[in-house]
């Protein structure tokens, strides 16, 4: 029976190869899309979940009450971890970590001048007990107990020592900012897996970090929030209760503190990392949900199309069904036959889709920035088989039940008439599919326009032709010499140095005070430490006053603010006014126009730029256009004169800027694919429906043609039926698309406009595509010899 059916299916395939192929490809595309999204979602859900302590592993976050609202952040006092662990029996152990992303790259070197720049962090002794980064060598209880202990990844061991054998006990030097220290390897770990948010190559003991604080001017007290705090709770601890207990913990240590604490599961944060006014407000989970929804939609459309095409084809087989019934086939046998056929087809589609996934995986990984693999194990194959069976059953059951229910006699006499429900279902399908296409096209255009907007937005500074690199090694003590030498290079327009990289997160303070400030108000100011020439190097526009300059001797007591700061301070004539910055009296000498030093998602925050070349970490060089290569080579040799043996790692500011919008770029790239696939599948669906419709009207078309109708007239007749419904779907989809895109754009403080033409264009595109698809079928129907059609009856 099986054998016999497979043979029949293949014969059917050869006979209707084009429609069979379309149907198969449509379903396979849907499957492939769903599989890719499923893999992506599964990967997103797995992030940070690999720790064996996952169920007990929590991170302590802070809610800081500010005038602008509650700010939620992860940096906590150094003392928090150990004090909490000591005071709360619910806590098994606690770990303070100064994460790698606080530092940029360390410079790590061995005596034989093996020099590597890589990410590292400082962590308290329980780190490898709390987190499951596979420790290959060393005792998790002890590896981080010594002041100068360091645990390195297998990769770092290989690049520093060329081996992982007998590395324990070896020494190397590490350097961050201007500090150089020795560390002794106490353990080797496997490295951080791709689905870990924390990425680092070595872990130094936390006491080494504490010992550095003096050199870095860092104070350790309850008001300084620097490391992350992680907790491993005892099993069965009621977290709600614990949270209510620790909430005011910092306030008991420091009177007047505006900070309250709460613990959240560590692995929860990757997807739910956003807080608005102290309340969890989504995060990447929104993309996970959105993409899951898209996957379900695509699967649904592909499935419905498949069912639809299959039933349309099944009605061509009415006669066969009639005959089979007359020669003694019961309904059961017919149902088995049709569902069997459908299940075999879905499995074929699944096999094709797996090949597609395999083929598109590298491209998909490129777009999503993931390292997904197709692993054909039970966990993957079982749901797939399930989906195949369900799709197959649904696909087969409908025609089987519907067609087999007819009286064979009425079938053999001619086609039974369609129920009105079925006609509505098919029209509904057209409306639904093209509605989704319109939404997808409109979304694609809007996302693309927003990305273009980000690219072209006047940021208030010029990001082009600027490179930056770490201010390190001998540049630190000889900064003025380095700057003077660099300026001598003909291709260099300007040189300065700054605390961070400009793009990203500068530090912030609420220690700004000025005359007339509400003493209760906590207002957050972003802080940028800068050298002379910074404003000139970046071409930031001055609204008033002056920039820092070496013409003045006392720049340390001056500061520059942006207009947003002036707005919150409410100063009428800011220039010359004295304000207090963390207790130091400083005079405002300049006001810069607002420039976007943060993501365009945010409004420009109040900013204060202080003159503090001793604490800058990054060199910024503006290059003259046209000779960048040459200039960079010269900078490199200048750098090498100061730091022999150091690799010269530089970045372009505009590239870094783009990285800020990696997520948007990805969404933009993905939205193009989704729109393409959505349209493709909708077209396949429409193609099938049109084929079905013209098949149904074959006789009518034949008679019309015999009576003198022209091809164009027949085509208009067939097309107008569909176009009506596509137009309706446009009317329904436009407000939906508008709503969704408006919501998405609202997540940007600075955004492109939603013009009417975007929707008009989407509608015209969808309509044009629909017209092409339907015309293909109408043309085939209209040009057929009418005699064939009539004889067929």
């Amino acid at each position, binding site marked *: 029976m099986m054998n016999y059916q497979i043979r029949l299916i293949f014969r059917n395939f050869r006979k209707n190869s084009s429609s069979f192929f379309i149907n198969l490809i449509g379903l396979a595309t849907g499957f492939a899309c769903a599989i890719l999204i499923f893999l992506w979602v599964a990967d997103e859900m797995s992030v940070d979940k690999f720790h064996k302590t996952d169920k007990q592993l929590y991170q302590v976050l802070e809610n800081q009450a500010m005038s602008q609202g509650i700010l939620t952040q992860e940096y906590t006092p150094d003392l928090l971890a150990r004090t909490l662990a000591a005071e709360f029996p619910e806590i098994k152990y606690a770990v303070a970590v100064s994460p790698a992303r606080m530092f940029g790259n360390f410079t790590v070197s061995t005596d034989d001048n093996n020099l590597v720049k890589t990410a590292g962090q400082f962590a308290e002794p329980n780190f490898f007990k709390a987190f499951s980064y596979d420790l290959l060598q060393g005792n998790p209880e002890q590896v981080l107990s010594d002041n100068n202990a360091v645990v390195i990844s297998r990769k770092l061991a290989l690049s520093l020592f060329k081996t992982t054998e007998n590395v324990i006990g070896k020494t190397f030097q590490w350097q961050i900012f201007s500090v150089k220290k020795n560390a002794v390897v106490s353990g080797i770990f496997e490295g951080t897996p791709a689905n870990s948010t924390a990425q680092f190559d070595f872990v130094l003991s936390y006491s080494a970090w504490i010992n550095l604080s003096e050199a870095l001017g860092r104070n350790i007290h309850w008001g300084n929030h620097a490391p992350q705090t992680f907790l491993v709770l005892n099993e069965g601890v009621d977290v709600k209760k614990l949270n209510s207990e620790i909430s005011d913990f910092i306030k008991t240590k420091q009177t007047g503190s505006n900070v309250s604490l709460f613990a959240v599961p560590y692995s929860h944060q990757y997807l739910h990392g956003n807080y608005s006014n102290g309340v969890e407000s989504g995060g990447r989970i929104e993309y996970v949900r959105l993409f899951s929804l898209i996957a379900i939609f695509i699967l649904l459309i592909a499935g419905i199309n498949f069912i639809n095409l299959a039933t349309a084809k099944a009605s061509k087989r009415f006669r066969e069904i009639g005959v089979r019934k007359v*020669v003694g086939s*019961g309904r059961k*046998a017919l149902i088995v036959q049709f569902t069997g056929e459908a299940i075999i087809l879905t499995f074929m589609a699944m096999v094709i889709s797996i090949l597609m996934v395999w083929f598109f995986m590298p491209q998909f990984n490129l777009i999503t920035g993931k390292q997904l693999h197709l692993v054909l194990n039970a966990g993957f194959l079982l749901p797939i088989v399930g989906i195949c069976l369900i799709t197959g059953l649904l696909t087969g059951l409908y025609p089987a039940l519907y067609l087999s229910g007819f009286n064979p006699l009425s079938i053999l006499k001619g086609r039974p008439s369609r129920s009105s429900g079925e006609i509505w279902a098919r029209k509904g399908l057209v409306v639904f599919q093209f509605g989704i296409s319109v939404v997808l096209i409109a979304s694609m255009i809007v996302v693309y326009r927003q990305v273009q907007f980000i690219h072209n937005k006047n940021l208030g500074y010029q990001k082009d032709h600027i490179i930056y690199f770490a201010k390190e090694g001998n540049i630190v003590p000889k900064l003025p010499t380095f700057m003077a030498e660099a300026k001598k290079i003909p291709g260099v327009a300007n040189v300065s140095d700054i605390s961070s990289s400009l793009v990203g997160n500068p530090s912030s303070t609420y220690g700004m005070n000025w005359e007339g400030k509400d003493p209760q108000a906590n207002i957050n100011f972003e802080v940028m430490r800068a050298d002379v020439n910074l404003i000139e190097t970046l071409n930031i526009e001055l609204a008033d006053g002056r920039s820092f300059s070496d013409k003045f001797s006392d720049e340390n007591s001056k500061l520059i603010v942006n207009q947003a700061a002036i707005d919150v301070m409410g100063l009428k004539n800011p220039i010359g006014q004295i304000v207090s910055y963390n207790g130091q009296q400083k005079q405002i000498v300049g006001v810069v126009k607002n420039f976007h030093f943060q993501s365009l998602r945010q409004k420009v925050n109040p900013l204060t730029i202080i003159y503090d070349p001793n604490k800058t970490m990054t060199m910024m060089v503006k290059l003259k256009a046209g000779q960048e290569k040459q200039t960079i080579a010269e900078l490199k040799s200048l750098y090498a004169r100061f730091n022999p043996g150091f690799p010269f790692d530089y970045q372009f500011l505009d590239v870094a800027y783009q990285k800020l919008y990696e997520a948007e770029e990805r969404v933009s790239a993905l939205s193009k694919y989704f729109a393409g696939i959505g349209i493709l599948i909708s077209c396949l669906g429409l193609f099938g429906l049109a084929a079905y419709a013209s098949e149904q009207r074959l006789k009518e078309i034949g008679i019309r043609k015999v009576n003198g109708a022209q091809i164009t007239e027949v085509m208009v007749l067939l097309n107008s039926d569909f176009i009506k419904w596509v137009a309706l779907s446009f009317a329904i989809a436009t407000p939906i698309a508008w709503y969704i895109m408006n919501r998405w754009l609202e997540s940007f403080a600075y955004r492109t406009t939603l013009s009417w033409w975007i929707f008009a264009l989407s509608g015209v595109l969808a309509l044009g595509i629909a017209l092409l698809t339907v015309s293909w079928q109408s043309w085939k129907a209209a040009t057929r010899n009418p005699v064939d059609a009539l004889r067929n009856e």
Partner: protein
Amino acid sequence: MIHLNNIDKYYDSKFQRTFVLKAVNLEIKDGEFVSIMGPSGSGKSTLLNIIGLLDTPSAGEYSLYDKSVLDLKEKAKVDYHRNFMGFIFQAYHLIEEMTVYENIETPLIYKGVKSKDRQAMVADLLDRFNMVAKKDLFPQQLSGGQQQLVGIARAIIGKPKLLLADEPTGNLQSVQGEMIMETLKALNDEGMTIIQVTHNEKFAGYGKRIIRLEDGIVRKDVKNV
């Protein structure tokens, strides 16, 4: 075998009732060969379809071997189709996607006959109809007469007691028609009960009994000697 008592068949439209069959009484015994004749639209096919359980009468009684077969459940009907009767159509109604061999084999599959037995039975029939060489061809590759032979083969492979043929020669040239009629006659000689509808006087003559229908009424019912 067949007992029809006062069978009416009518269709109701808005204002009137149209009778297709009216007060038909008919008794057909095992081994008979009946030809039904009559002008187009006189209800021949309707009568045959009622006998074949493809259609139901509007009024009257119908029993097979003294068992009423009105109001049969779907399952019981399928059973009759599988084991008791076979059909031959004017338009052959072969399944285009299947070969000659497979078309003939289909009823056996539904009957649940084992694959080995099926092979033997189909081979027998192919041999009998001289179609062994054509077994792997598709219906479209055969002449009309050959297609109808396949139709007959399919109808009788399950060894039915009753063979119903609605204008089996309607689409055929006379030579081929004659061949079909000879085949039916041979089957009847072997004991199969046959009811055929035909327009052709000569072919009707193959039957042992001729029934003439006019406007749904049996006008004549004569033995043919």
